[in-house]
């Protein structure tokens, strides 16, 4: 089991970056199967080329799902109250995304984080803000 990162929850603190393995066709096929998003832009090179891409591109929601692992790595487990992102650049086949986050505010029992995903060349593909409850999830049940 993966360890939880006991992030120092103070304004300005950076979360430990999450470095992902290289994005392959298999990565995208597996994500298409579990996410239900079988858009051929992510699976079929011919369709991707016809749409003006060099090859298939990764699902935006794969980057967001990876970034969600930053949120679930917080200790103790935090409830994600709200989270929105913009997909600002495409993730090509062969990319190695890294997910990053920074605490921007702590308001009462809510911690606010900037969350983003970048590629090896520094291109940010996904960027947004999450609000997580400081009350551990299980205590609310």
């Amino acid at each position, binding site marked *: *089991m*993966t360890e*939880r990162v006991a992030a120092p929850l103070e304004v300005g603190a950076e979360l430990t970056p999450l470095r*992902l*393995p290289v994005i392959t066709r298999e990565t995208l096929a*597996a*994500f298409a*199967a*579990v*996410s*239900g*998003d079988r*858009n*051929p*832009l992510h699976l079929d090179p011919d*369709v*991707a080329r*016809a*749409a*003006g891409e060099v090859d298939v591109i990764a*699902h*935006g*929601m*794969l980057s*967001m*799902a*990876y970034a*969600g*692992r930053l*949120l*679930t790595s917080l200790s103790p*487990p935090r*409830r*994600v*109250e*709200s*989270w*929105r*992102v*913009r*997909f600002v650049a*495409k993730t090509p086949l062969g990319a190695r995304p890294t997910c990053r986050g920074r605490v921007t505010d702590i308001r009462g029992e809510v911690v606010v984080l900037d969350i983003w995903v970048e590629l090896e060349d520094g291109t940010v593909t996904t960027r947004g803000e999450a609000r997580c409850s400081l009350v*551990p*999830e*299980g*205590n*609310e*049940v």
Partner: protein
Amino acid sequence: MKLPGFSVAVERDEVSSFARAIGENRGEYHDIEAAHALRLPDLATPPTFLFALEFRRPQPYLALELLGAPVSAILHAEQGFDHQHPTYAGDRLDFFPQVDDYYEKAAGRLGFLRRRTDIVRDGQTVARLSNLVAIRWDRVA
């Protein structure tokens, strides 16, 4: 404009498969005993899992079809999650999707379709998903 509603029973296997596909190995997504140890009633759902369930909608691309847009011409531009209550394996969730807005930019070369989906469990709203896709009309043959 309201889109057809639908209902989904959250299966443990699906939660676990989704988590595995994104490299999320924490026990509360795979192991009922680990979930119980965190005082959760069943397996937790990863932060973006509801988007995958939402893809179960009967006609996943109905709004795009009404606009005459092929799936390969769309790019995911924004995604938001607002969670009022956590969801778990074993939940039965009712989905109420609707189109909020459609507008064009760049002299009609780009269209933007905004949707939202309210998710209800036992009559109580547990989450809202917000979705914006860009339609690249200039890539449509």
